[in-house]
């Protein structure tokens, strides 16, 4: 189709839509202005909105997120970019200790309506310090909305909700999805935070993914169908709020769940989800709760080594077949 757009373009589109609607939305980050962002995901914003809405910063991650906080607390809706999600570590105090706690610590006197956008994840040969799926760091901190879209139109729909939210949102844009294409989002497209997407219905096994792992589970579901196994596929879209109800209701139908995560097994979101299913969905289960995740290893630079560490379609299919036929 001629009018498909890339995930990358959807990011700038999603931001631009909100900036047109609300003058309090401003962007800041490194090289996001005239340069259009190092991933070109803010391309066109500087041209359309100019230097009073799009601000280039020094390499000062703490100042970026901290200043965004201060602005959010005083009437603005800042959208801060942290170039690679690994660099959230450089401002982790703000992400973990400040943003999510202000409303609570002040007894509701102060709110923090802001978005931190960041390029997340691996698969591109960027090595151990530029490839992590760090949404799991954030999952252990109450008070942060965590969004991680997998398609261009989800990017736009979730961006709208994220920017309009009165809660702080971490918005994980996946580097390995930037070049993927999809239908553009219709005008006024908004996806509520906390609503998982049942991307494919099925009856024998539930496959759950997020962001990078969605193409994997979708391809696996297709291959499973060819083998006569009917898989239901769920895209969580946000980790917080977590739409556990959609997952549990799927499991009550399929009796089997396989969670596919990009991140290392240890401390991954799949653990939290699996624990919910193994508790609240226990009596529905006909097979062990399974997770496919990356090895608990830093990611390697070499593509052929990185591939050894990350989940694959083949392993997903193989595991699902074993589960469905056990």
């Amino acid at each position, binding site marked *: 189709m001629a009018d498909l757009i890339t995930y990358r373009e959807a990011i700038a589109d999603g931001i631009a839509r909100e900036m047109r609607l609300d003058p309090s939305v401003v962007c800041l980050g490194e090289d996001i202005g005239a340069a259009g962002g190092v991933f070109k995901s803010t391309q066109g914003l500087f041209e359309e909105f100019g230097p009073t809405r799009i601000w280039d910063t020094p390499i000062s991650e703490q100042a970026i997120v901290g200043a965004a906080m201060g*602005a959010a607390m005083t009437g603005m809706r800042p959208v801060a970019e942290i170039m690679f999600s690994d660099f959230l570590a450089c401002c982790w105090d*703000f992400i973990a200790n400040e943003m999510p706690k202000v409303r609570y610590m002040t007894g509701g*006197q102060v709110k923090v309506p802001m978005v931190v956008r960041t390029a997340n994840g691996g698969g591109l040969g960027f090595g151990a310090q530029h490839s992590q799926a760090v949404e799991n760091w954030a999952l252990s901190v109450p008070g942060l909305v965590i969004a991680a879209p997998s398609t261009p139109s989800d990017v736009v729909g979730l961006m709208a909700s994220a920017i309009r939210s009165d809660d702080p949102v971490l918005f994980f844009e996946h580097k390995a999805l930037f070049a993927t294409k999809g239908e553009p989002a219709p005008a006024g497209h908004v996806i509520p935070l906390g609503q998982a997407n049942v991307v494919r219905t099925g009856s024998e096994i539930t496959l759950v993914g997020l962001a990078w792992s969605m193409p994997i589970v979708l391809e696996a579901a297709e291959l499973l169908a060819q083998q006569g196994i009917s898989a239901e596929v769920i895209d969580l879209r946000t980790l917080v709020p977590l739409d556990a109800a959609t997952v549990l209701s799927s499991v009550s139908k399929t009796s089997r769940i396989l969670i596919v995560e990009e991140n290392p097994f240890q401390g991954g979101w799949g653990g939290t989800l699996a624990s919910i299913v193994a508790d609240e969905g226990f009596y529905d289960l006909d097979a062990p709760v399974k997770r496919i995740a990356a090895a608990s290893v830093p990611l390697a630079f070499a593509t052929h080594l990185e591939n050894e560490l990350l989940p694959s379609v083949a392993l997903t299919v193989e595991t699902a077949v074993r589960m469905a036929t056990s």
Partner: protein
Amino acid sequence: MAGSAVASPESLSGWYEQMLVIRGTEKAAFDLFMSGLVKGTTHLAAGHEAVAVGASAALEPDDYVWATYRGHHHAMARGLSAEACLGELMSKQTGSSQGKGGSMHMTYAPGNMMGSYAIIGSHLPMAVGSAWSSVLRQSGQVSVAFFGDGATNIGAFHEAINLAAVWRLPVIFVCENNLYMEYTPISSVTAVEHPAADRAGAYSLPRIVIDGNDVVVVRDEVAKAAAKARAGEGPSIIECLTYRHYGHSRTDPAKYRPEGELEQWLMRDPVKVLREHLAAAGVGEDEIGEIEQRAQHAVLAAIEAAKAAPLSDPAEAFTDVWADGGSQWRT
């Protein structure tokens, strides 16, 4: 180092009363701790009052103020009542944050006192952000961040000031240099003599060190910086020399202080200094005595009210996490 600037007897009287209420509230907080009515930890600002009162005197009501865990004085200088302060310490429903924040997170949003942050340095970028916000909204507001000498060696300090300077933001960084971090002298861990002022040059800002125990001096210097900020001429760093009368926190007897140091600083107690200003401005002993009585009564009434108030509702534990008021994170 005494201030040469003038202030009206009325202004001086108002500041004196405010300072005494703060001092009395800090004393009450200390006593309530000792009697077990306040739990957790607390960091008292007795000795630092001139910085809070002087700075507030130079600001407009809608200017923004940001503080550290040692922030009772800043919240009160911006309008937080002694009762709400003590109520917070005592976990009462009448506390400024219903006991959810506590001593280290005093906040008074009606006075644009945006909160107290307990991780060193973290509020400095936030103050840069509220200054940026004022520029974006063209509101003319100034932002002030108060911080300790110890905060000058953490990365957020450097990032905040550089960004403020580059964007020429209306923000004033006010250092309360009380010579110590927790138990360690700042001089033993800092590569310059004046931890804040001697870093100003690294951001093309002037070096300013003032007497932080004289409310008039503080008022004047902050007023200058605020005028500069409102004129679009960017940030300032002001290092105020002061001293804390209590130890670092509730549990600290401050044995690390050299003998006689406290006594020497008590001779420059900001309350004493201001009382002298009052006398010099012709305010009589009677009038001063009346102010003192008023302040004392206000504090006593606040203590009684805070004691009498109910503990906050246990359900408060689950409110104010999310924008909908609740704490639901999953379906």
